[in-house]
């Protein structure tokens, strides 16, 4: 095998190697640790882009770990969707790492860089794996790293929210394992492609169990994606996290969405008997409720980062409205919106941090505070991030929402979907306008003038995120064509089953 054959393992191997290196040098030579961290992220982005190019002609690269053939060993599957998520994760990682380093957020504890790399390892592994139990393991890797990152910087508010976050996810992991046990007992395999073929042969007497297993699995993914009514853990956790970490967590809910998109068509497709398209009746209403709750939260939030956290819930809801259609068009629109909403949420968290750093004791509170240097520029960045999040032109949120509206128009319940998406957009716009005018226009004269952070270096990360959104909007034709092709590939599980199981036959 040449090095090119080992490409799919690199997004997992690079951070796995970088994390201990960063850990070793973190205490004494912080500069070196930052270098290791950046080098690892750049390498990951390079590998991810290469995989994206390789997946561009619809080939599915299958990597059998340890050369164990497919249904028995664990495989990594790099198709269009996985490559897209890898590129997104690596890009977001570079932006948030840059912000953490510029704002010295990584100095608040000893282990920021190692945890950051382990987090990326978990994310990349979850995106690549073609094995359900392995998916569980990578979920745990990314979760335990996220516990550490979420608590990074300490403080009682973080600890309080951290206890809830950890406990909720531990219960989620237990449910995940129960679902896996049931599915293994019924099908005798854990390979997703193989399971997709074998669910058709589940005995009629076991159909009830199959349905229970499928619903349990889907509810775990819904918990990770923070879909109503399983969203309650998110707002508090994200609002109190270190902003650079919260920006990275913007992709964590998308992992849940990714798992839904990956597993449901592959395993619980048309042939799955009682479990065929099992989340279909529940996902659509739940997604609409999440969109409403999220943007209502944006409307009432009294703090910029809390507002960003609710925007994450709302945009995941909007995203899942499109996913719940399970048609190639709606899924393609959803994938485009997924990339956009991840970057937009990250930009929002970063801008909130840039503003909060300049406002002294007022921090992110959505109340009039002191004037600070560069207020108009930070205000403009906030406006751009808000425009992106709510989906106004010219940024990519508008195109994403337009694609979603267009694709769901073919579905029977399109009236509800249109009503919810359009009204939540309005609520979101009003909410952002309210906090934006309080923070960036009004001034409390009696307040002490805050001592501004002297440099403008911390503008860099949010500006890059916003520039990427602008590029996503300018290159929307190419991006949505890629997303549509990825959706078509995901909805054709036979293709990936052939690729995965043919690898085993060799």
């Amino acid at each position: 095998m040449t090095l090119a054959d080992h490409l799919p393992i690199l997004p997992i191997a690079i951070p796995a190697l970088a994390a201990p290196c960063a850990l070793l040098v973190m205490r004494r030579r912080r500069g070196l640790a930052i270098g290791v961290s950046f080098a690892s992220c750049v390498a990951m982005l390079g590998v991810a882009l290469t995989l994206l190019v390789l997946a561009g002609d619809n080939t599915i690269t299958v990597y059998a770990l340890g050369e164990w053939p497919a249904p028995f060993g664990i495989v990594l599957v790099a198709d269009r969707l996985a490559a897209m998520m890898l590129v997104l994760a690596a890009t977001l990682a570079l932006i948030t790492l840059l912000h953490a380093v510029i704002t010295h957020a990584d100095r608040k504890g000893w282990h920021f860089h190692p945890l950051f790399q382990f987090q990326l390892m978990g994310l990349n592994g979850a995106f690549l794996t073609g094995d359900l139990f392995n998916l569980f393991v990578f979920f745990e890797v990314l979760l335990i790293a996220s516990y550490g990152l979420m608590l990074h910087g300490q403080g009682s508010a973080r600890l309080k929210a951290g206890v809830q976050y950890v406990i909720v996810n531990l219960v989620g992991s237990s449910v995940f394992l129960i679902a896996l046990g049931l599915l293994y007992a019924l099908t005798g395999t854990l390979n997703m492609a193989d399971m997709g073929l074998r669910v058709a042969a589940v005995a009629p007497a076991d159909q009830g169990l199959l349905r229970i297993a499928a619903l349990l699995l889907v509810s775990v993914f819904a918990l990770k994606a923070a879909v109503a009514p399983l969203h309650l853990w998110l707002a508090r956790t994200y609002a109190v996290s270190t902003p650079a970490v919260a920006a990275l967590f913007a992709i964590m809910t998308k992992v849940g969405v990714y798992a839904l998109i990956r597993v449901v068509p592959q395993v619980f497709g048309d042939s799955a008997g009682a479990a065929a398209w099992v989340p279909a009746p529940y996902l659509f209403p739940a997604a609409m409720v999440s969109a409403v709750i999220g943007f209502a939260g944006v409307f009432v939030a009294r703090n910029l980062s809390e507002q960003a956290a609710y925007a994450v819930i709302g945009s995941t809801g909007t995203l899942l409205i499109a996913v719940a259609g399970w048609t190639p068009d709606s899924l393609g629109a959803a994938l485009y919106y997924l990339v956009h909403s991840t970057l937009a949420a990250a930009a929002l968290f970063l801008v909130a941090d840039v503003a909060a750093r300049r406002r002294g004791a007022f921090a992110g509170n959505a109340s009039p505070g002191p004037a600070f240097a560069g207020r108009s520029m930070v205000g403009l960045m906030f406006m751009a991030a808000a425009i992106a999040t709510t989906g106004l032109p010219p940024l990519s949120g508008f195109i994403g929402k337009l694609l979603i509206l267009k694709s769901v128009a073919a579905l029977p319940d399109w009236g509800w979907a249109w009503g919810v998406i359009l009204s939540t957009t309005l609520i979101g716009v009003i909410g952002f306008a309210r906090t934006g005018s309080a923070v960036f226009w009004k001034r409390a004269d009696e307040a002490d003038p805050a001592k501004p952070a002297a440099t403008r270096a911390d503008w860099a990360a949010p500006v890059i995120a916003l520039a990427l959104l602008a590029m996503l909007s300018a290159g929307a034709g190419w991006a949505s064509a890629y997303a549509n092709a990825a959706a078509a590939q995901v909805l054709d599980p036979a293709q990936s089953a052939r690729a995965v199981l043919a690898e085993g036959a060799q």
Partner: protein
Amino acid sequence: MTYEFLVASAIGVLVAGGIFLSLRARTFQVVLGLTLLSYAVNLFLFASGRLVLGRPPIWDKAVSEYTDPLPQALVLTAIVITFGMTAFVVILALRSFLETGSDHVDGDTVPCDSQDGTADQAQKADAP
């Protein structure tokens, strides 16, 4: 049949206890509940390969019946992960209690329950 019943009822009792304790307000009880829940999950995973008595867990041409070895590997992984997670959540709960002065899961700063207060006083009364 009785063997299956025994394992199934053990899992059931553990899950019931785990759910009950997980819904309590205090972190210590919740941690115990999560531990019970993870025991139940481990037993359940183990049973997902079917319960076979006295057979080797390795496929061999000479052996006609064998135990599925894969669930044992899965359980091993699950045990390691849940053990690490439990250790983490214990430390986190302790740290949270020491920093916030509250061991309630929802983080309410109630210094101590009236119930505990009376218990403490009762102990003090007993002590001398």
